[in-house]
């Protein structure tokens, strides 16, 4: 073997193992985070944590039932605001549209995706909270909903574009018109990907704190209806982590574990269910 060949082979081995190390580092971060949260927050999880309201400061016991419900309500609203617009907008980009408009929409979607969540919070504060004279679940859901739109839109578009042209052509050949082709052939074919995208977008906003600070605000108690401030897991974690009390820190770890568990379990379940036993492919 020539020196050059040896050099090439060892470079090959070295660089390839380096990429392996990169992959190992990246994926081990998740297990580390999860492990650390379980280690720190696991012991404070109890039945009370899920069923009780927070106790006054410095008193033992208490839970975060209101924050858990609040997060679920906010996500529901976010989905109602964000998914229809994102989904239909994605259909527009993939199936209709000329030259300028799709470019503009795609560009804006990426732009909106990059807008800091805190700016979205300010926007929702000015647009919803100030006119209503009320912090509310609605305002928080609105802010999260806006954040959902670009992700769902771009995801929907890309999955629709992945639908093989043969399916469309087949549908056309059978005489279907365009919207029927979209509704009965293209969307169902892409539905697994689209739904995954939607749930991913929701999982992302589930942990958003900044846009909720001045919209959903916080609540010590249950938040009745949709027009009152509500507690949410991320905001509680932030408040408790930066608060001065040791038992708050403990509860912040526990709440962090619950939030992470909620997000990861949703992700895993959805993906497993959607892939229906076939090997996991994309997203």
């Amino acid at each position, binding site marked *: 073997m020539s020196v050059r060949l040896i050099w090439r082979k060892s470079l090959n081995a070295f660089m*390839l193992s380096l*990429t392996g*190390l990169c992959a190992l580092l990246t994926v081990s971060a*998740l297990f580390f985070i999860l492990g650390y949260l379980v280690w720190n927050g696991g012991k404070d999880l109890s039945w009370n944590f899920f069923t009780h309201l927070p106790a006054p400061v410095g008193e033992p016991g208490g839970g975060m039932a209101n924050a858990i419900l609040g997060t679920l309500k906010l996500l529901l609203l976010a989905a109602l605001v964000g998914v229809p617009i994102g989904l239909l907008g994605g259909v527009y980009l993939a199936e*209709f549209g000329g030259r300028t408009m799709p470019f503009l929409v795609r560009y804006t979607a*990426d732009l909106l995706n990059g807008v800091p969540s805190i*700016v979205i919070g300010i*926007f929702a504060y000015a647009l919803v909270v100030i006119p209503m004279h009320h912090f509310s679940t609605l305002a928080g859901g609105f802010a999260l909903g806006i954040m959902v739109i670009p992700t769902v839109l771009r995801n929907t578009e890309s999955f629709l574009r992945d639908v093989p042209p043969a399916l469309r052509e087949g549908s056309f050949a059978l005489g279907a018109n365009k919207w029927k082709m979209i509704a009965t052939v293209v969307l169902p074919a892409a539905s697994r990907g689209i739904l995954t995208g939607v749930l991913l977008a929701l999982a992302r906003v589930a942990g958003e*704190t900044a846009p909720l600070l001045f919209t959903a605000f916080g609540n010590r108690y249950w938040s009745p209806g949709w027009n009152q401030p509500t507690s949410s897991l*991320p905001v509680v974690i932030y408040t408790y982590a930066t608060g001065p009390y040791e038992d708050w820190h403990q509860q912040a770890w526990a709440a962090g574990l619950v939030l992470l568990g909620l997000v990861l379990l949703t992700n895993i379940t959805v993906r497993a269910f959607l892939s229906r036993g076939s090997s996991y492919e994309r997203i």
Partner: protein
Amino acid sequence: MATTPNATTPAELGWSPQALLRRMRGADEIAHLITFIAAATLLLITVLLVFQLWVHSAEARAKFGWTFFVTRTWDPVAGDFGALPFIYGTLVTSAVALVIAVPLGVGAAIFLAELAPPKLSSSLTFVSDLLAAVPSVIYGLLGVFLLVPLMRKTVQPALKSTLGFLPLFKGPTYGIGFLTAGIVLAIMVVPFVLSVSREVLLAVPRDQREAALALGATKWESTWKVVVPAARIGIFGSVFLALARALGETMAVTMVVGNNPMISASLFSPGYSIAAVLANEFSEATGNLYLSALIELGLVLFLLTFVLNGLARLLILVTTARGSGVLPS
């Protein structure tokens, strides 16, 4: 994945051809209109957002003009506001994040796309995607209680003793600061670099690899000289996607950056980012000018994203002859 085309059977089309044609056109147009409205709503929201930021920052813009961007003072009592330390902090933390995240993410993507057996690759990608789903407040929590003490006691002293001759690693080691914020951001954006890069690498046709290998190239050579260049546009896309996330990140940065409007060459120094100052001061700024200056900062952040997005697109348009300018996401 593919469901059988559930198309209309010819039997259902049994009316007069003309009427059918009209009906189809009408339905198509309605569908077109509805989806158009949805797409336009996105534009409308964004325009409204810019409008709000523009209108509510009027007072600060009138008072400070362009000097806002080069002024280093941030004095709520005297009513003197400048954006420079916040812009600086935002750019520095994001740069640190990219310097760490891009090699790591692209390296991992190469492993997953080119080397790992399909089963391993898909499960590792799954894990990386789960990592992308970890809420930012959790990163903040770990940042405050785990990373900051680690940086102060171990990482920063080590850097100081080895690379201390560089201006980047000088000064007291507080634990918090640009470097820590950048590292937290890096961990947060790696999955984005990874998943997009992996996808574009996988999209490179198989025969290109095989051709390179057949010519006697090693696996690494075929990857680095053939596959990666073919996928570079998408990789650039992933970098800018990561940058967008890094610039916009609020909570995790607020919790570890040090919250002090300082401009310092040292990465150990505490700093501030635009998003962090908004999180800290927006809900409590009492003067109109103060509030207006904060909203102008929001506008600056928005414009920064706008310009970077534009640059990304330009880059992609220049490097690709195809010129569709679509960022993979």
